[in-house]
Structure formats: structure tokens, C-alpha cells
């Protein structure tokens, strides 16, 4: 995030945190909302969470690294989730990962240098009937083939 916008950017985090009572049980929900807003957990926002819920930063760190829904590094504009659930796996999800790797030059868990694409493999999206499945920012793609991967990326580039 550019330096100038940090204060401005933090106002959203403040608003999110303010919605929750100061009880430990809302910690995960607050972190998830921040993750949703910023696509990751900015350090500055974590400091606010720490203050609001009166928990040590180390606790937040352990949660951020334990739960897959949370990330400490910024994710790309388009987050590509390739399902590697069993049904997708035996229907060739590994090939999709390899194709994405070839086209984007990034591996699972990485983001392209221009910040446009992130790739992740996820366990099961519960859409096994249309395996293999890919989800890009909440849009589902079913029965994806290696040939379709390039086309999908092109469409996303064009949308920009």
C-alpha cells in the first residue's frame, strides 16, 4: 500500500474492529474482515486489533499463520484458487497448476511481481461434480482443461 494511503486505509480497519465487542471470540471474525478488505493483514491493522482486543501480537501471529484464510503478505488482484480436493486431483488438477506455473511463472502460494495474480491450491471447494475446479475471486470455473487456463487468464487481462 502506498505510504500516503496508510492512514486513510486504516480507517476501514478501525471501522471493522469497532463493530466487534472487546471479546476474544470475535478475534477471528475481525481478522477475517480485515483480510477481506485488504486481501491480507497489514501490520498497522494488526496493531489496532491488538489494542482493541488486548491480546499480544504474538497471538495474532499464531492465528494468522494457523488459519489458511488469513495471510500476512499482500495477495494479487486476482486470486486463483485451484482445487486439489480428491475428485479434482484424480481428474487432473495438478496439470492445471503446472499450466498456471508455466504461464504466470509463479508457484502455489506466490504472487506475480506486478501484483496482478496470486495462485493457491485449496483442499476442496465442494464442487466435485464439476471437477477439476478453479475459483478466481469468487467466480467458479468448472471442468477446466489446460487449454482453458490460458483463455481464462486472457479474459481476466482483458477485463482490466
Amino acid at each position, binding site marked *: 500500500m502506498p505510504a500516503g494511503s496508510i492512514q486513510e486505509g486504516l480507517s476501514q480497519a478501525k471501522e471493522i474492529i469497532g463493530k466487534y465487542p472487546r471479546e476474544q471470540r470475535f478475534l*477471528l471474525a475481525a481478522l477475517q474482515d480485515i483480510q477481506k478488505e485488504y486481501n491480507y493483514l497489514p501490520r498497522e491493522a494488526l496493531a489496532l486489533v491488538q489494542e482493541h482486543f488486548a491480546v499480544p501480537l504474538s497471538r495474532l501471529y499464531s492465528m494468522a499463520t494457523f488459519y489458511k484464510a488469513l495471510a500476512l503478505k499482500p495477495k494479487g488482484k486476482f486470486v486463483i484458487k485451484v482445487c486439489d480436493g480428491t*475428485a479434482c486431483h484424480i481428474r487432473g488438477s495438478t496439470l492445471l497448476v503446472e499450466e498456471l506455473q508455466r504461464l504466470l511463472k509463479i508457484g502455489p502460494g506466490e504472487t506475480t511481481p506486478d501484483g496482478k495474480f496470486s495462485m493457491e491450491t485449496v483442499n*476442496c471447494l465442494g464442487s466435485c461434480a464439476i471437477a477439476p475446479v478453479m475459483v478466481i475471486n469468487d467466480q467458479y470455473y468448472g471442468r477446466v482443461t489446460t487449454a482453458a487456463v490460458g483463455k481464462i487468464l486472457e479474459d481476466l487481462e482483458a477485463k482490466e
Partner: protein
Amino acid sequence: MVFFKRKPVKTVLVCCGTGCLANNSLEVYEGLKKRIEGAGVRARIRPVTKATGCNGLCERGPIVKIQPDDIFYCGVKAADVDEIFERSVLNDEIITRLLYRDTSTGERVKSHRETEFYKRQYKIALRNIGEIDPASIDDYMERDGYRALKKVLTSMSPQEVMAEIEKSGLRGRGGAGFPTGVKWKQCERVEALPKYVVCNGDEGDPGAFMDRSIMEGDPHSVIEGMLICAYAIGAEKGFIYIRDEYALAIKNMTTALEEARKRGFLGQNILQKGLNFDIEIVRGGGAFVCGESTALMASIEGRVGEPRVKYIRSVERGLWDKPTVLNNVETWANVPVIINRGAQWFRSIGTEGSPGTKVFSLVGKVKNTGLIEVPMGITLREIIFSIGGGIPRGREFKAVQTGGPSGGCIPKELLDLPVDFDSLTESGSMMGSGGMIVMDDTTCMVEVARYYLQFLAEESCGKCVPCREGIKQMLGILEDICAGRGREGDIDLLLDIGATLQEASLCGLGKTAPNPVLSTIRYFREEYEEHIRNKYCPAGVCKELTEFYIDIDACRGCGLCEQKCPVGAISGERRRTYTIDGTKCIKCGQCREACRFGAIKNRGRRHEDNH
């Protein structure tokens, strides 16, 4: 469904479950809605369009149903909207080309109820899925919704409710199969207050999506089940823990809770009968271990989701150390029906030890994939071959995986095994939450075991040593075997470490983690030995142990393989034959998948040794 006495009003149901949405069902829904609303008085009939939950046949989506004629269209595209509207909504015509083609008979059928896929099913937990708009509490109530709640509040004591559930023999659908009524009674007996009711919607088994479908398609059935339990055990607060990945389930459940509150089914003094109960949704954080009950409770409390030792069970000390009943989504959805129709009726379905039905997600290498609900005791053969329509592309059935990463692979010798909690456990697998993944001869059992172990290695919370270190070691051995570095003695070592994990792990994740390995060794030992001794992967999956070639005798020279090859490794001449260049081949197997004559074969590395 809406019926008037004289003229039936047509209802158009467009499936908007996740599977159909991925196939653009929203476009179809919007299109039909526009046409129907735009028709105004000109139309003789005024249909209602609804977005429903999942129909089960996700593979053929988007699915459109027209009631009351029970017309079932699949694979509908936005371009078909006008034709459907003109012919089937305004008029009573059937568009043959959109009808479902039965995989077993090859004929087109008008109603889904006539298909082999549906005929053998018996819907209890999925009774409303695809029939109602999940956002409409009225739809739910028209189909007996909240009648069971009224019944228990007006005419049954908490003791009677628990006795009824116990008598029904309902067992936990999350996988372990603990008797639900017994659990409620144990919790009720504990004197501490407050008590909590929790719904486990953290469906994490890869290949299982029945809970997603119920939460998306019939959220009120879960709420009603929880309410009935709250009344029975004296709880005032409930939580539904939903996997973060299930955005639509969270949305639909949130709407349902709001609606239920508005109608006075949740909140203070429910139905003026003095019951106070409300439910909160907690979003999961994306950790498989949180499906384990104590880890799930830790997560609700806002902590890292690590399980604890269960010498004190959660019915005594669960959420915030208070007595807690935790049941799975599907279990909750069964409860209202049992109350409405009685324990006797429920017992008449299924088997003596496992009454009722079970929902499975039938996926993998099978013709009809999707959600099915069948009476317990049905055989695997019936599920896979009658309902599932068998294996696609004429390939051979090899195994079916049940129970997710805690389960195992069941071979074809056991196809006549009746499906219930006890017999699946006996076979070395388990019921689990209901994922059923069919595998054919192009699935490598060693690689499947490796896949599950890798999954578990990532998901182990790391708290106890046997699980954290044991899985890692087993995974290392399996990776070696798959990469051609397998050694004599590896199988015994796997069995040995596996036994330790079963004995010494803290929670269910670690205790059951060796199952995928142990069951595949038990039934497919030769395949392991082929990998280790002959450096050969019979299924042609492990790349280091695979070399594809084209059998000249079988090849008809159609050239399909050449078209499918993503790296241009196949060359040849049409109507003659083709060859694969081994130096270019990436062993993706797409040529084999495409070949209609079975000409693409695998000779493994054995062949190199001969040279």
C-alpha cells in the same frame, strides 16, 4: 410449490447451487425471470421463478425444473431461455433436446424422478433441496417446516423428545456415528449452565459437499433441528460453524436466521412457549482440523483451532467449558423429520444398526456425479453402477474411497458390501462425512495414499508428536516410492509407523491418518510392490515410473492423441499410426484419456532396464 385449487400455477425452478452457478445458471435465472415478469397479463399462466439449492446432478447443470409437470431440463444455456419460456412455460410443450439422457438406458426422460440416478434414492436430509427457495421461510413452512418445533413445544416434554431421537437410532452423520439421542441425554444430565448447541458445518473432507448443499439449499432444516435440541437439553445459545470457503452457505444461512427471528422461531419466548434460543454464525478460518469437535470449539472461542484430549467429553465440558451438544449439518437436518414422522418410521428405513439414510457425494471416475441420498445398507455396487451409471469411457472400476483422509480405499472384491457405519469400518475404511470417490484403472493407489498424507501433513496442527512427525515420515516414504526410490522394507515401515499413529495420536485426525495408507496396502499391495521392485506404476500416474507408448495393433490412426497432446510429443500419419516421443512427453495422460481404442499403453521404466 404453489398450488391453487383450480388452475395449477407453473413454477419454474432454476438451480442456483454452487455447481450450477459455475455453469452460469444465474444468467438463465435472470433471463427467465425477465421473460416471465415481462409477460404480464398477456400470459395465461403466471409462473414463479425461484432460485433453488443444489439438485444433486451438478454435473449436468444448470438445471431448470418446471412444476407441476415435473419437467427436468439440464445443461440449459442462456440461449435456451426464449424457447423454454415460449414452449414450456406459456405452453405445455416439452423440449426434447434439453431433457436428461439416462446414462443406463440412453433414453431421454421427462422427469428426473424417472432416471436411474433418482429412482433408488430416498430423500430425508435432502428432502427440500432443489424444491424450495432457500431464502424463503414460507417455502420451507409449506413443506412442513417448523411443524416439528411446534409439535415438541406444544405436546412433548424434553424427556420425550430425547427418547424419541434415541429410539429412532439416529447416529451422527459427521462420520463417527455416535447415537445422537444418547449424546443429548448425556448433556441434559449435566447440571452446569449455560448449555450450548453447536452445528458443525466445517466440511473439510476433500470430495464431500453434502453439508454445503444442505446449508445452501435448506438452511431452515438445520435451524429447526438445533431448536428442537435446545428445547430438549435446555440451551439458550447456539452456534453454526461454517467453512470460510462456503460463501453461499454463509449467505443463505444468515438470511434464514434473520427470517426465523422475524417469525418468532428464534429469540425470546419462542411461539409463546417460554423457550429462549438464538443462533450465531461463526466463519471457519480454513483449517481442516477444526472439523474435529474440540478444535472447532477452540476456534469458536477465538483461539487457534487445536484439539484437546477428550478424557472429559464435550457434552460435559465443551464450549467455554460448558456442556455442549455438537452435531453435524446432516444430523440436524434429519431431526425435524424424525419428530414429525416418528422413530418407528425412521427405523423402518436403513439397517438395524444404522437406521435412516445417508447422503453421499458421488464423484470421481463415475458417469453420474453429484449428491445422492440412499437408505443405509445399500451396496456399493448399487451406488456406483446403478445410481452412478458405472465408469465412464468403458474403463475398469478399481476402488472407491470413502471417509475422506480418515477413510480408506475399498476394492472391487468388496463391491457387495452393504454401506453402513459398521461394515465400512470393518473393511478398513469408514463412513466419514460421506465423500465417495470412485477410481478407475488410471488412478494409482500409491499416489492416492501419498495425496492424502500430503493433505494431512499440511493440516496436522502440530500439537502432538506422533501425528506431526509420523505423517511427515510416512509421506516421505510414499514420495520416494512414487518417484522410483522405493526400497525393500518400505511397506513394513509404513505399517509400523501407521500403527504407532493409530495408538498414540491425540485426536481423530492423527489416529485415522494412516487409514488411506493401510487400506491401500491391505488391498493393493502388489501395486506398491510394482512401484518398489519393478519401478513400474501400473496406472501410469507416477511420472518417474511411467512411459507411454502407442500399441500399433490397437491404433486406428485417428489422430486424436496428436490433437490432445499439449507439448507436441505425438507425431504420425492419419489412418496409419502414431508414435510418442519419450523425450518430449510430460506424461500427463491426456492422450490415453482421449484414445477411444485403448491404444495408449504404459510400459514403465522396466522397459529401459531391458535395453
